[in-house]
């Protein structure tokens, strides 16, 4: 009884508070609910700029991309979300495959390079993230590094490499390798890595820190982590080495956005997607988060190797998700998980 009473009180108290907030939103105009798997520290300035430019209020729910995807799947048709802004294509692919995403306007889709969007037009990439090998510039020079990630199975790298096997970007790379070369070749590669006694990490940024400290010489991460760590720790002796020519190590994954088909704000949602793929949005990703713009004919900033030289392996990023259970399986077999 007391329990019910107490809960009742809470409902009233919180309902009152929530109601007040909603009222403010309506007075100012439309409110769009965004589930963002992209980190607040990175994208909040862009989203604030969007609110100012477009006069649309955002209610942003930050979380882990995969956990937000799981939440969207549980919510199903009752989801309060209008837009899903995801860290990687895999999470968007899963939500799309479940039939929860609405098709995106063709004009927007066509701006973006075909490898960075859903083939069914259910989501569109907003920025690209290249897999690289980071290396300690005091221990190695660019010429010491091999052209293919597969060469790191060579004995000479024993005890010198590290990567984060539980991280979704690394798992996506393994899934892409399975897609390109099949199970056996991927397993052989992973076993070769294991024989070189790699250092395993939980987070990409920890890999970069270990390379900076000289604990290991080379680490496999996404290309922008050295900028993130440098922002925190100042100058670090670490540089990116890009794999090129369609090497399996050259996967470029996309962060992207999809519109939930339960939205009652289709217009505002489209404005949001349009904004992220506009010149302004793309410049933000290129200059502030050091990612690759995905709209055609836009150049990446700084010392990033242009996309046409990298030639990411030709795969459908949406379908990467289907290879993931297999990737996890191989990683577990080898003992990385």
């Amino acid at each position, binding site marked *: 009884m*007391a329990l019910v009473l107490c809960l009742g009180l809470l*409902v009233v108290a919180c309902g009152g508070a929530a109601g007040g907030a909603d009222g403010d939103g309506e007075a100012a105009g439309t409110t769009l609910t965004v589930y963002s798997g992209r980190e607040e520290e*990175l994208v909040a300035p862009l989203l604030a700029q969007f609110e100012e430019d477009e006069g649309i209020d955002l209610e942003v*729910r930050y979380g882990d991309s995969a956990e937000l995807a799981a939440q969207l799947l*549980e919510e199903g048709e009752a989801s309060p979300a209008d837009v899903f802004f995801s860290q990687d294509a895999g999470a968007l692919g899963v939500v799309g495959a479940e039939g929860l995403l609405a098709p995106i306007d063709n004009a927007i889709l066509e701006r973006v390079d075909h490898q960075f969007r859903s083939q069914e037009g259910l989501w569109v990439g907003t920025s690209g993230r290249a897999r690289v090998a980071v290396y300690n510039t005091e221990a190695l020079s660019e010429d010491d590094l091999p052209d293919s990630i597969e060469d790191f199975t060579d004995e000479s790298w024993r005890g010198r490499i590290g990567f984060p096997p539980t991280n979704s970007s690394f798992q996506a790379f393994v899934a892409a390798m399975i897609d390109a070369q099949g199970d056996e070749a991927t397993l052989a590669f992973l076993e070769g890595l294991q024989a070189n006694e790699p250092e395993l990490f939980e987070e990409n940024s920890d890999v970069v820190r270990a390379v900076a400290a000289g604990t290991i010489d080379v680490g496999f991460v996404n290309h922008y982590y050295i900028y993130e760590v440098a922002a925190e720790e100042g100058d670090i002796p670490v540089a990116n080495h890009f794999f090129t020519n369609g090497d399996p190590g050259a996967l470029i994954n996309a962060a992207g956005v999809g519109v939930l088909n339960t939205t009652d704000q289709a217009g505002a949602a489209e404005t949001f997607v349009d904004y992220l793929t506009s010149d302004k949005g793309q410049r933000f990703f290129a200059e502030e988060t050091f990612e690759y713009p995905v709209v055609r004919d836009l150049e990446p900033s700084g010392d990033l190797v242009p996309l046409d030289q990298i030639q990411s392996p030709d795969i459908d990023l949406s379908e990467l998700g289907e290879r993931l*259970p297999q990737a996890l399986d191989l990683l577990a077999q080898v003992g990385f998980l």
Partner: protein
Amino acid sequence: MSIAAPVIRAGLAASRAGREASQARRALVLCGLAVGALMLLPVAYLVVRALEADASSWDLILRGRTVWLAVRSVGLAATVTLAAAALGVPLAWLTVRTDLPGRRLWGVVVALPLVIPSYVGAFALLAALGQGGLLDAALQDTALAGSLPDITGWPGAWASLTLFTYPYVYLLVAAGMKGLDPAAEEAARSLGRSSWATFRSVTLPLLRPSIAAGCLLVALYTLHDFGAVSLMRFPAFTQAIYLQYRGAFDRAPAAILSLLLVAVALSVLVLEHSARGRARYYRSGAGSRRPLRRVALGRWKWAAFAFCSALSLAAFVLPVGVIVFWVLRAVSEGEEVRFTWAAGLGSILVSSAGAAVALLAALPVALLAVHRPRRLATVVERVSYSGYALPGIVVALALVFFSINTVPLLYQSLPLVVIAYVVLFLPQAVEPLRGSLLQVGPRLEEAARALGKSRLGAFRAVVAPLLAKGAGAGAALVFLTAMKELPATLLLRPTGFETLATRVWSGAAAGLYGKAAGPALLLLAICAVPLYFLARRVEVDEAEVESK
């Protein structure tokens, strides 16, 4: 007629009292069932999802690796629990029963590691002692460069979980010790037992329920922990569950694995039940309780002092030092360090509501377990542990599923976050309540009733004051744990609502430790307040020190 009237009146009164009693009993059972039903939600959800599993999911589960992970998780839980008991019981004895220098202060200080979330603690340990960490960097130009052992894997997971959970054992055992009657010990001493033999044969058995309760909380905490094991890269059962959600986006195998985790937790409960035994723990002799005598440590005094110091250094000063270092570094690099006061208020609001509701829900469970230990009560009690054994994300998804399909109004509201805390942490409220109820003998209640109190009156006069102690401890424990909770808060909170844990997460997720350190420090400061009262509660009044 004139004789019959009082008799009839007395008879009526008796039957009314009987009716009242049976009504009270029925209400208690109903409340217990309601709580049990709430606690069953996650399991019900998991069954729904597990039934969707296809052959390939089952293949994924039914193989050696799952067994291997289960063995590792159980092994970790067992070793952490043993170590936590090995730290917690002596600490309780030192701070409650001896003349340890600075005893009152230590009573609070050794409980402090409880304010440190295990993921923050594990992270700080790695940052301080791990390879490439602060100590490693400091040694770089010395002869000891590169000589640090790798602490990741089992040693790191074991050490961090032990250091940040032993206070559960310490606090519950210290409270139990304070409630002991010295008469039993004095009898043993007068019969010629040495003080060690007395401790082993009399004190320790009397403390069995508190030790078992503390160990149970530690064991189940270790089983459901994800943060520390993943940071230490110790492949455990929870990691397999998270990988299914995060890596493979597959809910069916995750559900099956979670159900297996619940099964493991249930077997731990059965184990605890037999360890607890069916003994009685209340005093039944005449006379009133006297204050406990304290033992003079003699030349062991400073060894005990060093033990407490070393432990506090590793479990509290070190992690706090690392966080302070991050704050200072951020400040020195001109970054703005935000303490996020609004998030602090948010944390306090939901955590206190969680503690209050958990306490109300724990009351019928504990009363049923102690006063009516029959099959129904046992089932309700066991069920109430299932949420505590599950990783936060599983409980959160279960509540997403039920709330959005039944009471959409509740979805992403603060009451739902509160309900999640109750489902996740109820045992932390039940255990101290049960502990204090066990020390209330039925005679006390009977005596009060014989003195003319009604059943409710007897409860109010006799049981309630004793219960209040356990209630305070339970509420404080739930509050502390809720303050640190992350995965369920992230999924269930109203959009835009922030707690300190979510602020720590959003800084750490971006790899910006300076950003995470401010809210982490504020979290520790807020948690220290209820912890202070929790630890002070176990302090005994000054009593004469027993001479050797």
